[in-house]
């Protein structure tokens, strides 16, 4: 395989940096914004650029499980999922970072990355004030520039540059670091890596926020634990159960179930 070379080429670093730029721009509300929340597309991109899709995707999968519930459109982002994914997948492919350790490494990188996101939202205040001025004179070309062109260019520096430079300069140093991880620490990281997905699921359950529906979580857990149902059939079961729940609860007491009291 291609794991013989540790160093990544300048072109590869730039390509991965460009993904970080794209994630910064979020072009397309349900296309670009996804890149903030999900490490899987980032993993695929790194896999393609570094010619090792399987390893990158496996790292992406374990990050995805941990970050399942990280959602904050327009709100405060706790972790920069994309940054963590780009760096961890690259290190896994190029510096043989074990998957379990990559999950632990993702956390500090994610927190570092989110600072850039916060800076960005301060910088964006500049564009809207610029647009205010252009609006005074009806200069729509100016508004397009302030609202599309300038922010896109600034994000190239804010997001693309740090990732590209960091990867180009840092990967080989990192390989040495990985080789000195003691085995007791590796055991700990492996256990922590196995537990981390619990966080993703707990967040999703908490965000869905319906305490009276919690038995359905338990039902899903038991069905897989004891009946070993694969995930697609489980989704079909889920859809049927959801449908039946709605039908039964809306007929029982004149169309208003306990879940729908708020709409009464």
């Amino acid at each position, binding site marked *: 395989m291609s794991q013989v070379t540790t160093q990544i080429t300048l072109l590869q670093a730039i390509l991965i940096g460009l993904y970080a730029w794209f994630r910064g721009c979020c*072009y*397309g*509300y*349900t296309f670009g914004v*996804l890149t903030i*929340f*999900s490490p*899987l*597309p980032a993993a695929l*991109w790194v*896999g*393609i650029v570094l010619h090792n*899709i*399987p*390893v990158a*995707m496996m790292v992406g*999968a374990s990050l*995805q499980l941990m970050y*399942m519930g*990280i959602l904050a*459109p327009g709100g405060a982002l706790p972790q920069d999922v994309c940054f963590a994914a780009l760096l961890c997948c690259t290190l896994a492919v190029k510096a043989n970072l074990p998957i379990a350790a990559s999950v*632990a490494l993702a956390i500090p990188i994610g*927190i570092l990355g989110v600072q850039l996101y916060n800076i960005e939202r301060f*910088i*964006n205040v500049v*564009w*809207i004030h610029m*647009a205010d001025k252009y*609006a*005074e004179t*009806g200069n729509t070309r100016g*508004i397009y520039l302030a609202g599309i062109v300038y922010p896109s260019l600034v994000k190239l520096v804010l997001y693309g540059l740090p990732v590209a430079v960091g990867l180009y300069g840092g990967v080989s140093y990192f390989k040495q670091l990985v080789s000195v991880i003691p085995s007791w620490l590796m*055991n*700990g*990281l*492996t*256990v*922590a890596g*196995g*537990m*981390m997905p619990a*966080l993703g699921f*707990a*967040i999703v*359950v908490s965000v*869905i926020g*319906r305490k009276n*529906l919690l038995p*359905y*979580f338990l039902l*899903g857990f038991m069905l*897989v*634990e004891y009946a070993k149902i694969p*995930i*697609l059939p489980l*989704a079909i079961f*889920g859809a049927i159960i*959801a449908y039946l*729940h*709605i039908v039964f609860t809306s007929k029982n007491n004149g169309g208003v179930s306990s879940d729908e009291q708020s709409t009464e």
Partner: protein
Amino acid sequence: MNSLQNNDANTAAVKAEPENRKLLTPRDVRKSWWLWWWFAELTNSYERLQALSFCISMIPILKKLYKQGDEFNAALKRHLQFYNTNGIWGSIVHGITIAMEEQKAMGGDIPGETITGVKTGLMGPFAGIGDTIDWATWLPIMIGLFIPLAKQGSWVAGIVPFLLFMCITLIEGIAMDKLGYKAGMNSATQFLKSGKIQQIILGASILGLLMMGGLAASNVTVATPLVIQNATTKISVQKDVLDKILVGFLPLLTVTGVYVFLEKIKRNYTLAIFILLGVGLILGACGILK
């Protein structure tokens, strides 16, 4: 136009009389929506969030409705005010805004403040609905379906769930925008009042919870290597005790622990991450868990 003047401004926007010559074509409305979809989050700022993106989407519309001059500039400024919603379900607000601007340009008595008021009044409820349905439920379900493939290292999981999600939300968004433009203010209030939307959220929540439960069972891996040794027998805590009580006891305990921490102690994801990491590291390094 005079007939409209005494009416409440909101209903004026709704009762676009069919014989009135419309200033905008469906194509204009669609084009404006695409501008919104493409750049909705590009300039999200702490001060006015999606305001600049909304204004950009309105530029082609306003250009068609108003002549260059004070009225046009005022309209631009109107749409640079604070705005934040879910880009898909909030599209209904986008459609309503276009309809109101069109009425205003045709001479309807709609003060600019009314348009701003409608926008800020509706953006919240639709953000709540949209974020719950699309981001918090559909997306995790869609990703969840492809997790097994991702774990095998397949490229499919890196793109297919996201294309699916994008297609579904594009259809939702375009439909909401159309609904808002055609039916105006009333569509929004009726939409919010009807029980249908609550049922959709209920159904999505059930499906989401069941899927998360199933995924947790197959993806959270916690087990203990501990062995209880007495004079004659060796008892494995995992195989002979925990698995006899409940398969998946430790994973379920872990998820429950994190959930209770978030719900009852502190809703701080970063803190939760560090605690979980710390617990895993220590128990793993000591050999209590494997």
